[in-house]
């Protein structure tokens, strides 16, 4: 029971993180919601995991849970990557404004630094 609560909380936190990120896209959020929902379902109904495991061609229910967790981790990494890309974009805009402001204040001189 304890481990089920911990796993559920962990999955929900991961989902919340993915949703809160501005960089997340709609598709990513949907995927995360789907995988986390499925994960929570398996945590609370482990006997059902055998059915899904067989359907997906995986040996045991426990293996399926492990694989799902890997998928969740991968999606989280993707969210982090997109966040980094977004940050880089903002950094670029900022650096550009600094460059252009210096150019304006340097006036008719050749080199602007």
């Amino acid at each position, binding site marked *: 029971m304890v481990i089920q609560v911990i796993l559920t909380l962990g999955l929900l936190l991961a989902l919340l993180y993915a949703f809160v990120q501005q*960089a997340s*896209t*709609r*598709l*990513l959020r949907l995927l995360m919601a789907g995988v986390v929902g499925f994960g929570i379902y398996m945590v609370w109904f482990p006997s059902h995991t055998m059915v899904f495991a067989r359907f997906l061609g995986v040996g045991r229910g426990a293996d399926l849970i492990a694989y799902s967790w890997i998928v969740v981790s991968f999606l989280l990494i*993707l969210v982090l*990557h*997109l966040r980094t*890309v977004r940050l*880089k*974009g903002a*950094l*670029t805009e900022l*650096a*550009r404004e*600094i*460059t*252009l402001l*210096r*150019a*304006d204040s340097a006036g008719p001189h*050749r*080199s*602007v*630094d």
Partner: protein
Amino acid sequence: MSEPRPARTVEGAGGVASEAASDFYVVVAAYNEGAVIGDTVRELVRNFPSTVVVDDGSEDDTSQQAADAGATVLRHPINLGQGAALQTGMTFSLRRGAKYIATFDADGQHSPSDVHQMLEALRAAGADIVLGSRFLGEAPGIPFGRKLFLKAAILFTNITTGVKLTDTHNGLRVMTADAARKLKITQSGMAHASEFIEQIKRLRLKHLEVPVRIHYTSYSLRKGQNVSNALRILTDVFSSKVMKW
């Protein structure tokens, strides 16, 4: 916002009208090109007084060399990538009242005379942007591996952008100020070349390719595309596509 520079007469400017000369901005992005930027700029300012070098956070004396050679130098406080440097140059040029903007490589692979021809072609066709093509023109001494890699990249870009070009990774471009205003290069790294083309398609810019000559030197070949660059381009393109889903 600054006033546009007044027109200046440029003697012997190789066929470019004196008034147009100061409205024609050539943007050169440079990162650690201290060894060659001086020569590149000297050749350019002879024809194009409004030559802008964007030093992308170089660790060498690129800025000083470019300034001594006669360019207007902008300096990024940190290294951002070639795409970002070109965009900074384009934004600067537009704010200074440019009517035409060219992008030109720092390493001496391009010729100013090709820029003249591209501008003429742009005006004659009433186009928004003209792209240089080494495969329509010449690229003497191009290594076989480089050629193969480029052809693969061109095929890939043609398929993903839906635009049919013979040279998608040529840094030589000439565009109108209007086109420059519409374009927004956000890919800082090497994937900016495909971004130019994607946007040309999306913005429905009238474009054409013009044959140009690429001079390969041992210096420029050393700095050119390699496998790690190619992989980085692929991940950049992948990221930008995923962000739109």
